[in-house]
Structure formats: C-alpha cells, structure tokens
C-alpha cells in the first residue's frame, strides 16, 4: 500500500513542513504519493515531483482548493483514500484543519502530531503540552496522521523525479469561502525552520523594543519569536508565538530574552539543540532548561550582544 501526503504550497513553493512529513512517511515505508491541490498548482506540482522520495504527484489545479478550505479539500482526499494505507499532512494550521475532517468522513480516529514512527501502526506523540509522551497503536484500515515537522529531519527538496498525474476536481461544497489574509511579511527565515531563533517575552516591555532583537537576528540569520505573554500584551502579532498553543520550534540555537519560562512556552522550544536565556531574574524557570544562562538586564545585554557579534 502507498502513503498519501497532503502537500502544502504557496505561490508555487512547497512549505518546508511538507519535506519533514515525507521523512516521516519514509520511516513508515511504502510508495509516497503527494496531493497538490489548489490554484497555481503547475509550479507547485513540478516542485513536489522534485522532492526526494516522492513517487507520484496527484494534481487538482482547481481554485476552490486554494487556501486549504477543509470543506472542499476533505472530500477530495476521501475520494482518493481507498488506494492508501496512510494519509498524512504536516501538523500546520492547514493540516490540523483538514485532516480531522477527513478522518471523521472515513470513520477512523486520527493520530495527531506524531514525533516518532515505531512501525507502520505505532507512533509516539506528545500529550499534556509535551509533559508526557504517549505511544499509540492504531488498527484502523486507513491511518490518518499529522506530523510534527520539527521531530523529523527534512528530505531534500530536489533530486526526485516523480510522475505527475492530473485528477478531477469535485464540486465546490459551497460552505466556505476565502476573503483575505493578513500575513506578516519578513525578510527573515521562517520561525519553524530557522536554524537560530531569538524570542522576546514580557520583559521586552513594549513592541518597539523588539527592534533590538531584530538587529541581533539579522546578524545571526535568525527568526524572531515571542512568548504568549508578549503576544497577549500586543507587543507582536500572534504568528510570532512559540509554545504549546503557538509554534513548536527546534532550532540549533534558541535565545530566550526576557522570558520567564512558563510550561506552555517550554513546550514549544525545549527540543532546541542549544538554549540561551537572558533574564534579570536569576530564579526564572527558563534557566532550568538553558545551556547558557546570563543573569542581566536585557536592555544592556541585547545591544551588547549585537555589538559583540560584529
């Protein structure tokens, strides 16, 4: 049997998390097919066909599949499901929106946010914000799975040569329509795939102070993130949030600035390879997970850090 992966793409570019999902699928084993749905699917289909490890790309280039509308996308996946043992997507906001709808239509239980593949039926996933890890086994005929991208090393985006096959679109369900997006534009790398992340917390005191972090980020080629407290206080937009209910990151270096280290934040970054904490409170829980802790006023330390980096 084969595995079908829902490909996430935008403007002909494949989202990084899709490459991690292919890696998870390779650990399960079997042919890997990728569904590319939505407008401008031409470029995206070619890009998907080039991904290492993908055997076949199914394309439905209909505008109603754009923006990942679950009401339209789920029936398309369900129609294809009979040919597959596993249906997978990255655990992004798109995947988390669409896949449970697919699972319920197929009358199967989904396995959310896997971080480890034991075999083709058994998977590990975090529960309680990562404070416990559950190993789950499924005997469902079709396994519907979302994948935590940071837990799997991405496959190469090029070097593959999958066959591309066009499939028919269904009728528009007429239940939902896209209006507009308010996306944060940034020249910096994307938070979930950046090798270095520097995040600010409530200690930043004001949104304008994030400019200090941005200067350091630009010297390091890092992405800028934030704790929930900083987002709730309105310092930065919601898509900056690292934590249980925001993004989960696992970069080579994570720098937490003015972040106390609430459980909900740690859940989003504790798998980083090296953690640095800068906080003036030497009792802050963030120091318990930090490899290198600096007890200092961030308003002195961050500009100094920028200068030191030259």
């Amino acid at each position, binding site marked *: 049997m084969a595995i079908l992966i829902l490909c996430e793409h935008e403007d002909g570019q494949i989202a990084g998390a899709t490459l991690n999902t292919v890696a998870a699928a390779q650990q399960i084993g079997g042919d890997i097919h990728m569904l590319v749905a939505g407008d401008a699917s031409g470029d995206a289909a070619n890009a998907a066909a080039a991904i290492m490890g993908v055997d076949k790309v199914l394309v439905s280039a209909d505008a109603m599949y754009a923006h990942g509308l679950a009401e339209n996308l789920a029936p398309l996946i369900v129609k294809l499901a009979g040919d597959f043992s596993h249906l997978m997507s990255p655990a992004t906001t798109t995947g988390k929106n669409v896949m449970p709808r697919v699972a319920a239509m197929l009358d199967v239980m*989904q396995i959310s946010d896997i971080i480890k593949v034991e075999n083709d039926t058994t998977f590990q996933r975090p529960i309680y914000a990562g404070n416990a890890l559950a190993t*789950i086994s499924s005997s469902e005929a079709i396994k519907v799975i979302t994948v935590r991208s940071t837990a799997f090393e991405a496959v190469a985006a090029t070097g593959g040569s999958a066959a591309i096959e066009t499939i028919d679109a269904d009728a528009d369900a007429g239940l939902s329509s896209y209006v507009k997006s308010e996306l944060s534009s940034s020249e910096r790398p994307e938070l979930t795939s950046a090798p270095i992340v520097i995040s600010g917390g409530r200690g930043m005191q004001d949104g304008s102070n994030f400019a200090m972090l941005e200067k350091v980020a630009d010297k390091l080629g890092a992405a800028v993130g934030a704790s929930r407290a900083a987002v709730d206080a309105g310092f930065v937009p919601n898509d900056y949030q690292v934590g249980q209910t925001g993004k989960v990151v696992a970069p080579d270096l994570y720098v937490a600035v003015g972040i106390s280290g609430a459980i909900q934040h740690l859940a989003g970054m504790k798998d980083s390879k090296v953690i640095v904490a800068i906080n003036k409170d030497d009792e802050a829980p963030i120091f318990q997970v930090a490899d*290198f802790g600096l007890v200092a006023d961030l308003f002195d330390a961050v500009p100094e850090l920028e200068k030191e980096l030259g």
Partner: protein
Amino acid sequence: MKIVVPVKRVIDYNVKVRVKADQSGVELANVKMAMNPFDEIAVEQALRLREAGTAEEVVAVSIGPSQNQETIRTALAMGADRGIHIEASHDIEPLAVAKLLKAVVEKESPELVLVGKQAIDDDCNQTGQMLAALLGWAQGTFVSGIELSGDKAKIIREVDGGLEHLEIAMPAIVTVDLRLNEPRYASLPNIMKAKKKPLDSISVEELGVDVSPRLSIVKVEEPEARSAGIKVSDVGELVDKLKNEAKVI
C-alpha cells in the same frame, strides 16, 4: 438562535502532570480538575453573543463521569442557560465524542456550536473538525474573531503565517483560539444561581453511539528531562561559548 458549547473536564492547567508508574497513563487521582481553558473561551463567546441579542440560549454539554457535572455547573455559573451531561465511564476518543455531540446537535438544533480548538490533556485538536464533518457543516477553526450576519459568519483564523479571514455558511462549528476573548469569572451569586439551573443527564447507550476506542495506548512515559547548563558572567563569555564550545554561531 441557540448555541451549543461542549466543555471538557481536564487536569487544571496549573498542575504539573505525573506519569503513572505502570506507564498506562497520567495520574488523575486526587488531581485538581478544571474546564479546558479553550472551552472557557467558547462559553464566554456564546454568552457575549447572547448578551448582544444575537443568541437566545446557551447550552453547555460535557461527556464523562458524574464529576463532569461540576464542569457544566462552572459553565452555568458563567452564565450558560442549561446543561446536558452525557454519562460515560471511561475516556472517549475525539471521533466518538464528535458522534455523541452530533446526536446532541440533532436533538437541540443549534445554529452554532462553539468549542475550544483543542483540549490541553490529549492535545488532539480534532473534535470540532470531526463534528463538522459528521454534520456536513462548515467549520471555522482556530478563530480569534467572529461576526454573525444572517446565514453567514465572518471569521478570523489564527494561521501559521498570521491571520486569515473566511466567510462560512451557518449553521457552523467554530473552534476558538486564545485571543478571541478573556473569559469572565463566575461571581458567588451566579455560582449559587447555577445550582438551580436545569441539568439533564443522558447515557452514552441512550444516544446509541459506539464509543469503543479505536486506538490503543502502548505506554505513556516522561520526556527526557533537560538539565540546566551553566551561568555565564557576561555577554562576552556567552558569545565565546556559543562560538567555540557549542559551535552554533
């Protein structure tokens, strides 16, 4: 308009969970329980819609043992009008929860179901989407803004890259995210009043839904603990360590 709000009873978010010694799950005995925080936000939104005159009735539903009635009473104390307790003795997976809620929706005929985007115990993030699938309704997930106008709802979703605006057909399932609102506290008089509000109980069997689990738990374990490292004395030492020891910059 009637709004149904499913509320889940979970370990209080302030409590540090402990894995059972036999690795069968997490310790629930003598642990403080509370309403799932995302469901609190859903209750609050339903109450605001009723207070604005958009909705007439808010019905809170919870599935689980008899203690779940406390969770429903919390919703009633916040201001919900009545409660439905679906009695179940063991943990029920999201798919079965969605089937039970479908039975409630078919009986109650609400125009809107508001529910938390995920429960903070199993972190599945499935129930709302599954309920929408089973009913064939539109779904608005991870919502931080909602505006109802006739047979449509304008919603704002929190997505990976920022915010997304959609228009969805009513009736609909809307799963709510953190920044939709700040839930109110129940006042003491309202807690007293809530004790007199109607709360019906019905069993899983009466609803005729098969709730047997589809997944099995092989084991539950503690994640590998991360140990604290060292404190550096100044920025210079920090940069030196990162360059020469950790080699990450």
